[in-house]
């Protein structure tokens, strides 16, 4: 059962059980990971080599390179929070962003991604960062803060001036486009 060469079958099986991908995608993902740095990543993952790819490589993938949140995405899924990724993290990332991942899981990670300062709340500074990234700083600071206040006004159910995970989930699961936009095809 070493048909795919890179995992032992048991390893692959675990990944299949644990991530929202299928065998086909898993193989593609592995090769994508390997193609980022063929000289670093071995083909044989039987002994779990300790390989970490730097953020520069991850962020240059065509799937991510035009995404304004690419650094955040890499940071959230990476082990150390700096965007450097092991294969595990890489698989994690694309399995969450795949179409097979459930809504709640996606919502949780979306929250993580938009929570720039990692304080478990999306506060106003996070929102401002998000807006600036989305509009490439084309809104005036007044407009930005206005938008942020609007968002807080709309989504902040417990009235603490920032969005907790529950607030965020409450808001995002009603969004019609969330699943289709928070999704990267591999």
């Amino acid at each position, binding site marked *: 059962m070493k048909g795919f060469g890179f995992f032992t079958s048991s390893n692959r099986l675990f990944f299949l059980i644990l991530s929202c991908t299928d065998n086909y995608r898993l193989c593609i993902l592995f090769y994508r990971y390997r193609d980022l740095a063929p000289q670093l990543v071995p083909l044989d993952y039987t002994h779990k080599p300790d390989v970490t790819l730097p953020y520069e490589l991850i962020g240059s993938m065509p799937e991510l390179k035009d*995404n304004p949140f690419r650094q955040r995405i890499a940071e959230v899924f990476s082990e150390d929070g700096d965007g450097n990724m092991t294969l595990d993290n890489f698989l994690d990332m694309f399995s969450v962003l795949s179409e097979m991942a459930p809504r709640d899981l996606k919502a949780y990670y979306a929250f993580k991604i938009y929570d720039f300062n990692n304080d478990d709340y999306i506060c106003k500074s996070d929102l401002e960062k998000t807006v600036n990234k989305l509009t490439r700083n084309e809104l005036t600071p007044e407009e930005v803060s206005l938008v942020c206040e609007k968002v807080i006004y709309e989504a902040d159910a417990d009235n603490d001036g920032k969005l907790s995970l529950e607030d965020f989930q409450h808001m995002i699961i009603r969004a019609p486009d969330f699943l289709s936009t928070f999704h990267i095809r591999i």
Partner: protein
Amino acid sequence: MPKQEKPNDIEENVGSDVDSEEGSAAENEENVKVTDKGGKRSTPRTRRGHARVRARCGGEEDEDDEDGTRRAGHRRHRNRRGRGRAARNEGSDSEGDPTRKNQANEKSKEDYEEEYEKGGKSGKGKDKKQDKKPDKKGKKENANKKKKDKKKSGSGSDSDSEEEPITEEELAKLKEEVEEKKKLIATLRNKPWKMKKKLSVLKEAQLFVEKFEGALGKGKGKKFYAYKVMMTKKWMKFQRDFENFKTACIPWEMKIKEIERLCGKHTLLGLDKENRFIALLKFMLCMTICMPMHSMTRLWMQEKMGHFGSSVASYFIFLRWMYGINMILFGLTFGLVMVPEALMGKPYGSLPRKTVPRAEEASAMNFATLWDFSGFAQYSVLFYGYYNNQRTIGWLKFRMPLSYFLVGVGTIGYSFMIVIRTMARNANDDGGGDDTSFNFSWKMFTSWDYLIGNPETADNKFASITTSFKVNMVMSLLGMFCPTLFDVISSLENYHPRIALRWQLGRIFALFLGNLYTFIIALMDEINLKLEEEKIVKYNMTIWEASLYNGTIPENSTAPPIQVDPADVPRGPCWETMVGQEFVRLTVSDTMTTYITILIGDFLRAVFVRFFNYCWCWDLEYGFPSYSEFDISGNVLGLIFNQGMIWMGSFYAPCLPAINVFRLHTSMYLQCWAVMCCNVPQERVFKASRSNNFYMAMLLFILFLSTLPAVYTIVSIPPSFDCGPFSGKTRMFEVISETLEHDFPSWFGKVFGYASNPGLVLPFILLMVLSIYYLNATSKSYKEANLELKKKLQSQAEENKRRNKQKAQKSNEQDENSFETEPPQQTGGKQDESTPNQDKKKGQGGNEVKRTGQPQEASSSQALQHAGLDLNGHYLPQSRGGNLPPPSIAVTRPPAPRGYGMLGYPPGNTCFPGMQPGMPRGPPSYR
């Protein structure tokens, strides 16, 4: 203790269950039998354990991977237990090895084992653990096993032989636990944990399940249980493999992905030519292998998830879906009509209808004639007229006319079914999401399409997001002053593109429809003409035959063998073939037009714009001709109408689905190529997922419209007398009654006759209409109830928010009053974190008091909530609270009055009617 078990017995067992679950199950059974003789009962759990240990030593290499990993985990566990036993002197505590994570489970297991001990025949003391027991008992069987285990794996066995069956409660409890673990394993992938954590949890859970699963079945149910477990496993594996297989079989998956990513990138004569070439080659290879296997389940899933990414990709997904349907139609007509006729029917030239007439013979093989689908093409299986009216053909006694009729009806029926089913599925995901209470939030968090992987598309997206934010702000500004105007404008703003799209679609639709029906009316005229002609031909035919006989009878008195070449026999006009030909010609010319349009309109234009831009007086790329956009609505409509044509014509030209499959296949590649190399991203981006059902509805409508003429011709026009499978009958559907007469017992025909009596049919139709009406009414009422509930929820949320705000305001006022008197109190993290916020607000200089204060109840309850969450390990609070400066303002206040106040306002009540209108819609700091 009795020493019943013989060594060879064990040997046999060892040999028998090297690797399979079945083996272990069988062994369980066997062992139970043996031990029962000695008045002993060992749990299957133990047995399974042994089986595992032994099996692990035997044939791990060739194990199924799943088992292999589990076993590995098992071994680790054993080792741990072994260590535990080494330190057994402490007694039972050794079991609770601190390395174990799921202590609770372990504990429950221990309890359960202890129970056994108590009830054991040998009456062990409480402090004795099960590990000691077998030795003391001197039970040979267990000792043997233990030795073996030790020898082979270096770890002992945890064989606790029990004498009494497990009590019901414990069994239930255990079962529950195992089920829980199983559920955990199944849902593990949905947990937001890091892979490492997931892995360890999974291993543990699997271990647990593995260990206790066997103990669940008891007595007679055991074998069955083991069998069931095994079958479930096998089934899961099969499902997984099948899933993989299906994924590999979906055509154009990569292509669509590429489109999504590039979404109209214009890399005309681009740099990565080689890559594309290789990809194309790979794709062709893949396609030739897996083209016929088209899994639609997958597609439905995508639709179900609302995943119609970018609109261009949605067109291609729609095309792929069409391709799937056409594949099935093609399979039906090809497998049940064309192939049987070609293989088993009379060969070409045996009958007048199967022969090219003498007058056309000269030009029958010319390319122009064939291109026009006449000549040899007309007199072949491709068209209706070629088929003979023999009731059965070949040694299989294949009922050709019946098959032809049923395939025609089945094509239409299948199409209706599939379209309606897809529509229903789409309709299910609709609904919800139409409320505008989260306008800004949704804009902020869901407007970026993560699929975008192209700088130009990204630029467009950035621009459109910026604009939409601006527009939204203007809207909300207007809303402040004039709410009704706001509604009007927002509806305009929200629906304008969609409405515009629909208008456009409607226009093209009307045009197409006009064309189609002009065509049909012309065709009908033609049919009537042909019918007239047919009458004349029939009359002439009798004269011709008579003359033939007249001329021959004197020479030969035996009438039959008059050898006339079938090519010379005069024949009727055969309107059915004519109709089929018209449809085929139309389809082919339509395809050609589309392709030429793509080549000229897109490709040549792009080449021109690209290369003449260097030497032109204005900017061609952004000026007048520019690159073409991919016209989604036009293309979708073209697809739909093309399909309508297929449905209409496939009864008279069985080759039509085949032609259409070919057309879709090529147009997939051509349009794909066009999109990627010579089109630009659309300026305005529609949400195709919304108009998705709109397309479907159109498709259904077209299907209905195209069914009408087909059904009309089948039911009310007599078939030609000398061509086609129904020749000689007055109506085509008589083939059914004929079959009933000949191939079914007589009582069946009688029953059918009664059933088709209008007296029965009419009430039945009435009943169906009534039930449709009823279902419609109920669904409507459900929808209304749904809306009502939604509204209620929304108003509730509003109410809550309002109340919260009031509370906050009030508390803040009180805080400010009590600022000097009350010392700052620490009540929890909540308070701490609210302070910077407050500071900021203060710093802004406004006396905004909106959210600064919090009632203590709320804060403490929230603190509790967060604590609970921490236990779950979802997120940890270490980053807040501790390193923040102490609060400068007292936020807390005595809880009692607030509590009363809260009690005073039941939820959903307007607490301060006077204040309500005064509540600002936006935050007070609004600029």
